[in-house]
């Protein structure tokens, strides 16, 4: 599940959630300072507000399931 931030940000990030690994503990939702993630109705983490992502890596580092991967989108890509 990949979403792409497109608006007026100098840096762009992708936040990928591997739904096979995700066990729905919600830690990522709670550690994200920008409310980028929310739980969906299948109780998996879901990217809902990618434009605010600052690439702080909190969601990736605190995900106990290795389900989240944050990458930066190169400016000229």
């Amino acid at each position, binding site marked *: 599940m990949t979403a792409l931030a497109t608006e007026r940000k100098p*840096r762009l*990030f992708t936040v990928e959630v591997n739904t*096979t*690994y995700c*066990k*729905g*503990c*919600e*830690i990522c939702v*709670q*550690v994200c300072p920008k409310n980028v993630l929310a739980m969906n109705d299948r109780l998996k983490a879901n990217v809902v507000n990618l434009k605010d992502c600052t*690439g702080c*890596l909190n969601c*990736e*580092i*605190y*995900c*106990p*399931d*290795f*389900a989240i*991967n*944050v*990458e*930066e989108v190169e400016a000229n890509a």
Partner: protein
Amino acid sequence: MAIAGKIPTRKYLRQDRLPHIWCPGCGHGIVMQALVRAIHNVGLSQDKTVIVSGIGCSSRASGYMDFDTIHTTHGRALAFATGIKMANPELNVIVMTGDGDASAIGGNHLIHAARRNIGITCICLNNNIYGMTSGQFSPTTPECALATTAPYGVIDPSFDLCKLVQAAGASYVARGTAMQARMLEKYITNALKNDGFSFIEAIDQCPTYFGRKNKLGDAYAMMKRQQETSVSVSKAAAMTPAELEGKQVVGELWNSPRPEYAKSYDQVIAKAQQGGGR
């Protein structure tokens, strides 16, 4: 521009073994990631690093990591690791163990690995409970807490593993919580750089057994609580024992390099070959 602190975590995992067996919200995955990140920071070779674990939830970690790995018997990870390090001191040896594994059934090995200052980094994932067998109290379960084998509350005083290991002779000792994952990563990085016995107590959460039994809320609530009851080494220095009651001191608690055991044995070899001894 790369993201600050971004590391290729997946390179170090056996991705075909995931998802892991740990419960939703279990802190072991967070600590395991901190270890992986530390290994990357130090630049350890995957081909020359052995991960050794005992028995219990946390000890399943070895199977998910792409190194030479060995999931041993209950409590004995450090004894197996000692054999590996002594037989081939060139290998980097890391032990992942739980609170019950390391401090109850394996307590003697913990003491003596620390005493020898053998070059092993030991990460104790302390979630205050026996998770694999569904919630019995361990030597680190806080007094008065509930567990399936302490339905009226634990009366056994809990163990301060860092003090134990420091007193036994470890050359690097640190404690952190899952909520302080980046600090844990830093401590483990320093531990891996230390040539001797390094001990990291990683306090993490068991929402399924310890949390539920003691009504501590969800995983995040448990993590926050562990953070809130933590006191840094510098703050703790100015606090009275009464003020420290119910708190845990986090940070680098001890860092005092001394000769590593396998290297000391190199001197035994040199002495024997020069015709010394009896």
